[in-house]
């Protein structure tokens, strides 16, 4: 009898993996970019901090770059929904790429765990640009398209620059580069007029006289750039930021999902984590799963409109 009851207990335990046992194996977070980039480094900090906040957890980061992030994102969303495969939520592959086509997932396939940071964006004028502030740029762009460099066709800062152009009713000519480092080089060398930069990189470059911040893509001015306007205050209804968060494939046991969500909340509010992220130039902020999902849906919708206007909808299907 005893044997049978143990077997039964084992069967039950096997059928519904009890939360008490989670995590009993290493948790994998798939980063859809190469090691060393800003998404990778911040996910590594998250992994380190998650181990601290989840009892007995081992968290490993797995880089699966390629296809502008779609390969790794697809791997994460098609992983086994047992709580051991998570993904870094990246705006390009999750919010934009499905509109371009050629992906085997959509935004609806993702379960959101939480957002722990936002990457703010600043539009900067490059060396020798024919404008130096918001108003001169707008009047310049009435007659001549502004050449805006980006880190890849169909990527987040290509679409954001085009979305701004649409909102401000100006002309831009997007110039794609293989990566953000290449776009930055072209900008400092004066081969393009403008680009989208992170506040940290824009601050250092503007102090050195290499770039001039034009506007911040937020609702309100930010501490790093008290003198730089937002598009909103100039009467253009446009904000954009990219996200740093975690997603999981649909269908994870509710209790496990809840424990992951609360762990991410603890990570995002851990002073040690906040300090390291801030040193890297990230804006740490916590959004729970629902808020994050709404943000993603909103950004995806804005992008869909811009991509439609560019004639890029479904181009890779």
């Amino acid at each position: 009898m005893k044997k049978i009851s143990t077997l039964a207990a084992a069967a039950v335990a096997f059928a519904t993996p009890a939360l008490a046992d989670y995590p009993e194996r290493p948790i994998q977070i798939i980063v859809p970019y190469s090691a060393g980039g800003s998404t990778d480094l911040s996910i590594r900090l998250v992994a380190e901090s998650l181990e601290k906040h989840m009892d007995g957890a081992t968290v490993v980061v797995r880089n699966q770059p390629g296809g502008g992030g779609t390969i790794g994102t697809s791997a994460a969303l098609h992983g086994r929904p047992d709580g051991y495969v998570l993904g870094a939520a990246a705006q390009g592959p999750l919010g934009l790429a499905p509109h371009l086509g050629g992906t085997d997932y959509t935004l609806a396939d993702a379960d959101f765990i939480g957002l722990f940071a936002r990457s703010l964006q600043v539009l900067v004028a490059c060396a020798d640009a024919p404008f130096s502030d918001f108003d001169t740029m707008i009047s310049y762009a009435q007659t001549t398209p502004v050449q805006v460099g980006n880190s890849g066709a169909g990527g987040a800062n290509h679409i954001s620059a085009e979305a701004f152009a649409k909102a401000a009713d100006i002309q831009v000519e997007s110039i794609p580069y293989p990566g953000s480092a290449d776009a930055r080089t072209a900008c400092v060398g004066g081969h393009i007029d403008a680009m989208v930069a992170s506040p940290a990189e824009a601050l250092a470059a503007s102090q050195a006289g290499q770039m001039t911040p034009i506007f911040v893509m937020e609702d309100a001015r930010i501490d790093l750039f008290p003198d730089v306007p937002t598009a909103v205050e100039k009467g253009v209804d446009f904000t954009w930021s990219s996200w740093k968060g975690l997603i999981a494939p649909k269908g994870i046991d509710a209790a496990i999902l809840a424990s992951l969500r609360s762990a991410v909340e603890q990570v995002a509010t851990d002073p040690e984590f906040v300090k390291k992220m801030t040193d890297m130039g990230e804006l740490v902020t916590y959004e729970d799963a629902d808020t994050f999902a709404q943000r993603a849906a909103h950004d995806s919708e804005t992008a869909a409109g811009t991509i439609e206007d560019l004639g890029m909808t479904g181009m890779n299907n």
Partner: protein
Amino acid sequence: MCLRSPRQAALKKIRPPMEFASYLLPLFQLNVIGAIALGTLGGLIVGALPGLTATMGVALLIPLTFGMTPVMGLNMLIGIYIGGIYGGCVSAILLRTPGTPASAATVLDGYPMAARGEAGKALGMATIASTIGGLFAAVVLATLAPQLAGIALKFGAPEYFALAFFGLTIIASLSGDILKGVLSGMVGILIACVGADPISGVLRYTFGVSGFASGFAFTPALIGLFALSEVFTQMERLALDPGRAMPVTGRWPSRQDMSESKGGLIRGSLIGTIIGIIPGTGSGTASWIAYNETRRSSKQPHKFGTGYAPGIAATESANNAVCAAALIPLLALGIPGDVVTAVLMGGLMIQGLAPGPMLFQTNPDVIVGIFGGTFLATIFMFIFGMLLIPLFSRILLIPRHILAVSIVIFCFIGAFAINLNAVDLYTMVGFGVLGWGMQKFGFSQPAVCIALILGPMMESNLRRGLLQTGDDVLAFVSGPITLLFLGLAVLSLVWPLIAARIARNVTLPSE
């Protein structure tokens, strides 16, 4: 002009000798020197293993440096970088497997030398060349960084196009059979077209396989093209003749090797330094150009490719010169010259240091520390390299059939480890078969490799330039840098003909 002033002011500020010496103090701490030595050794091993690249080594160890002082952490990463680019030559020479793409050109003369039983000598030459190239670029970095960094900013789309065009002409002079060489190069350019279009983002020739969205992965392709193809060829040969293990010789090149290699070392160091400063080109491009230039100016060009020490001298001095030189635009302007320096830039940002002209002013100690660390890492690389050569060479004492199996296993592990993408394994095997067929029928594998590196650079810059100038083709034939490279390209194409004519004129009277 506002760009230059803070930098020069900063330079004046760090000139006084007393102050300069005090900046070196944080470098000469036991733990800092230990970290540099450890980083260099680790990099050497990572670089020697196919599939683990210097980039990956640096990226994976960045989190380790979070808690270190900036001088210690950054120098450890620089040690990995320098050791990693050097380490690539070990497997290139011994196993025909470029450990990093930077060493692909070293295969050309390194592997034939090893096959002849001169593995130790080939590795010794590579070590000496890497050290000389590294030290040369480090001196340039420490003395002329702010002055030379400006070159990096001069390169727009037309300049990159001209550079890539010049690089592609190497194919013509490297291939014995011009027709087969050009065909191989064209196949390479076509292969490089697979993946997302660089300008519109439309997927080309992926046939719905999402793993090909970024094109064929470069390192797995190289591993297949050079290493797996060689295993196939050997398997054919082994079936007929079981073969013996290769003999292994001493590690020092002879005096004659050294004196013949002088030109290669100088050219490699110079070309590596210049290419290193130009962002987005990297050590792969530098070593091919250095190889070709050395071969062209050599009195015995026919010896190149048959296991000739000066060939190794040129490629290895060039790819290690790139390491230090790529730090020039990073430190002086805040723009990374290649993938590794882009990752290093992340490492600097984490330390709260934004690279760029302001860094000379705000943190001269970090700048001086990095200059010094680059020298130290290069010296450690030389010491470890020389000490490990006998050990590395022993790999060749393994019986050929066992070695062949091990290489196949390493090819698979290496190709998969890069992106953890199963499609890369198909890429590797496919390129292995391609390389084997090319070898069998006398087509040029290096031509495919060069086209894979430079084809995308030429295409994307041509189209980017046309986009920026409103389809003005004239932009591609104006400007001093563009004209310089186009001129070199023409010279590179017609030089074999001129050289043949000169040789005929010289030899005619004596006949």
